[in-house]
């Protein structure tokens, strides 16, 4: 049979038993054959595209197992304000963005009160000084706070009577919104973003994903701090994008999930908060906030009931857990549900799992729970002098213990949590191989597997993708090097030369 594409002179990592072949043939959207030597020649025809890998690594397309697609897309067209130091600098950035934006409203992201030398969020009247003729909407780092200018106060539907509207001494809104008011305001604004805008924004990030080798993402959409309209959009439109998008609807509404015909739910279904905001539930006090141990968002009874309902309805569940107390709570709920239903095989996941104890890892293995983790966190926050150490003190050496997790036989699928970290799997792979705490490091092969085979397994797609096997989808990457020859500390610099998705060459790096 004549192939559509042949890749020769490669080191084709099948991700099955560490087998490597030198060539690979593709027909339609499937891998036709793999082999060594000159065997590929029988597949060559007049119209066959023959790609010479030049001795470089050829591997399966990456699966990013935790990705906020719509938010990433919308943020890509937003103003990143995380680096500004003062209200004046913020104002000037907004002024400049407005001047360049052709009259569109200005959406700023990544602000926090602490970043400003003034020590607080700007008020709407201050924002007005820099931009008073289009709406300005600033989002805090974790979307817990919104700030509007006066134009936006009159442009958007404002939840004036809700809890969380900050007011000044004259009882007038300052433009800063917290808690319920922020949630309602975000929902009001996000639901007014048209699907056409969503489609364009997502289309715009596709090349970036393909250039980083991502051929499948697990899209964590809807719910807390997001918008259900995002999830609904992905549900209805995922097939129009060139990469595969697997929806995880972040909702606890089991009936709705079933009516939509979905077989899974969750993603950022919060059991606790974040380490950064000291809301991740720990079993000990935060080192930089004595007396604080974070919090569980739901009671054990509520978690138990919800997890049980997922088992009873045969739904795969992905729960957001960061601190050890949250992980414990989730595992207890799973243990209870398994005990009550006896239902296995749903491949339930815990997302993030930054601080599991050894006993919890053992329990996860016993319950067949998958850990969906983000090794890039360690590059951002791990090691001496970084955020984990600030929050946890000496306990920071226990974060993201990949080695122990794998050694206990728990499967890890890797993700970026984009847009919290960059959508660059090789950054995550670098983070797993070069964990700041040596005992937690994993091998290159194990790290690659997190973003390929394991990612496929975690969405019941291991028979379709995640490895280079004849008959599977032709989601294939050609790298700019032989990955095994790259020093460990340079893994993050590895580039993708070619990305093939379902048999189509969708990215080809210009040399």
């Amino acid at each position, binding site marked *: 049979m004549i192939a559509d594409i042949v890749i020769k002179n490669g080191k084709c990592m099948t991700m099955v038993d560490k087998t490597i072949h030198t060539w690979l043939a593709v027909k339609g959207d499937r891998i036709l054959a793999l082999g060594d030597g000159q065997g590929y020649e029988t597949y060559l025809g007049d119209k066959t595209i023959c790609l010479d890998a030049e001795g470089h690594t050829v591997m399966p397309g990456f699966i990013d197992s935790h990705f906020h697609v719509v938010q990433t897309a919308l943020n890509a067209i937003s103003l990143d304000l995380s680096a500004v130091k003062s209200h004046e600098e913020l104002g000037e950035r907004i002024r400049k963005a407005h001047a360049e934006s052709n009259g569109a409203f200005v959406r700023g992201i990544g602000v926090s009160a602490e970043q400003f030398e003034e020590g607080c969020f700007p008020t709407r009247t201050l924002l007005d000084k820099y931009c008073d003729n289009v709406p300005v909407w600033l989002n805090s780092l974790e979307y817990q706070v919104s700030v509007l200018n006066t134009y936006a106060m*009159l442009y958007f539907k*404002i939840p004036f009577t*809700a809890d969380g509207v900050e007011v000044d001494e004259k009882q007038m809104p300052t433009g800063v919104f917290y808690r*319920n008011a922020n949630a*309602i305001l975000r929902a009001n604004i996000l639901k007014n973003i048209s699907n056409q805008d969503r489609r364009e924004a997502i289309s715009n990030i596709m090349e970036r994903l393909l250039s980083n080798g991502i051929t499948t993402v697990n899209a964590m959409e*809807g719910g807390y701090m997001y918008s259900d309209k995002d999830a609904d959009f992905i549900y209805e439109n995922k097939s129009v994008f060139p990469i595969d998008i697997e929806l995880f609807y972040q909702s606890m509404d089991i009936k709705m999930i079933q009516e939509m015909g979905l077989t899974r739910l969750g993603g950022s279904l919060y059991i606790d908060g974040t380490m950064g905001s000291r809301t991740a539930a720990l079993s000990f006090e935060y080192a930089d906030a004595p007396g604080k141990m974070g919090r569980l*968002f739901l009671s054990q009874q509520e978690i138990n009931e919800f997890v049980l309902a997922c088992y009873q309805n045969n739904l795969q569940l992905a729960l957001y857990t960061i601190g050890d107390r949250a992980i414990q709570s989730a595992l207890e709920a799973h243990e209870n549900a398994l005990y009550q239903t006896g239902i296995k095989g749903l491949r339930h996941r815990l997302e993030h799992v930054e601080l599991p104890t050894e006993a919890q890892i053992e329990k996860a293995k016993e319950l067949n729970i998958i850990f969906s983790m983000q090794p890039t966190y360690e590059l951002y926050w791990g090691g001496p002098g970084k955020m984990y150490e600030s929050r946890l003190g000496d306990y920071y050496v226990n974060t993201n213990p990949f080695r122990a997790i794998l050694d206990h036989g728990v499967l890890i699928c890797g993700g970026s949590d984009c847009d919290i970290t960059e959508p660059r799997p090789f950054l995550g792979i670098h983070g797993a191989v070069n964990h700041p705490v040596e005992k937690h490091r994993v091998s290159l092969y194990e790290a690659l597997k997190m973003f390929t085979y394991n990612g496929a397994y975690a969405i019941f797609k291991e028979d379709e993708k995640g490895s280079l096997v004849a008959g599977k989808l032709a989601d294939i990457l050609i790298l700019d090097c032989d990955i095994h020859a790259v020093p460990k500390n340079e893994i993050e610099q590895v580039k993708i030369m070619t990305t093939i998705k379902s048999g189509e060459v969708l990215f080809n790096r210009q040399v």
Partner: protein
Amino acid sequence: MLNIHFFGKSRMYYSDEAACDQLGTKAYALIALLVLNEHRHLSREKIIGYLWPDSNEDAARYNLRYNLWLIKKNIKVDGQGNPFLLVDKETCAINPAYPFRSDILEIINFSPSDEDDIDQLLLLKSLFQGEFLEGCYFNKCDSFNEWIIFERINFEKRKVKILKRLVALYEASGDLDACLDTIQDIMEIEPYDEAMVEKTLDIYAMCGNRTAAITYYNWFSNQLAGSLGVGPSESLKAKYNELRTQVAQRQDSACATTCNGEHCLKCSEHDGIVRKQDKPIVMLMTYCLETIPFYWMASFLESVTQQLDREILQLLEPLEIVALSSIQPQLAYLYESMDERSLSVSVREAGVVSAFIRLVGQMGLKYRIQLTIADEDAMDLHSADIYKYIMTVHADCFI
């Protein structure tokens, strides 16, 4: 008659005639300013300060003159020759003799009272057809933009108040479907208002539809978790658990009495329990005066004396009645049954508070209290503290 609407897109029309919409947003803004300052003459300087603050004096005066002319041209004099506006060299005002209707006036003139009726409130509700001065933002007119925000806040509060009054009337009339629909309208404004969720659960329970109540609770819990990352309050959880227990008790009771203990699918239709919702409802209309200590409590007591017979008050100890009568003299009619010793004691604030709380508790044993508070924001501080307290300890006495 002239009708002017400021909710949604500003517009005006004469009854039975097509809209006469020749006015721009600044003209509507000017009319809104004058309408909401009804009975007052606004100086030209003040109006210019609101609407043309960044223009030079001549330009600003011209703009004001032009807009006044535009309004005069579009709004005809009435049958008696009265113009819509009273304008002189210094000031402008709405002519009180000119007959017109406006959505904002109808809304701000509403104050909850015993005479409210459903049709009247539905009419008011229908006036909220968007935001006040929707789409209006005037660049460099900071004071005017502030004023719009201020008024939008006030109107939002008024809307909630109207809807809550409507809920009370629907409930009292027994139209529980409409009651639920109206609660849904409130929830669209305040989607995490647990008091409304509790009321919804009460109404479902009142209808005997506890399944719907439990489903609704679960939906709301999902919303809270999904949107705010929190669970329901302890109070709401308690309500939910009470409902669940009632279902279980009812099923147990029904099975034991009619099904000889055998499983029966019809058990859920039996109603073998006494519900607190079976108590009669007493509707109390109360008023506030911010500067008078205990005024709201006095108003509450007055309403009690009007709505209920003296039996409920006679459940109190003589000294408690004396204490309460120190803030509500109408209770003095109960003195006839008291001895002189009781009447001669001096009353302290703590005694008033204690007696009031006990009265509410006693009422809760016999009735479900449907409380309406007019102008709640103006509640005096003493009463506000007590109100907060009784809503915590005697929340189940209230609908």
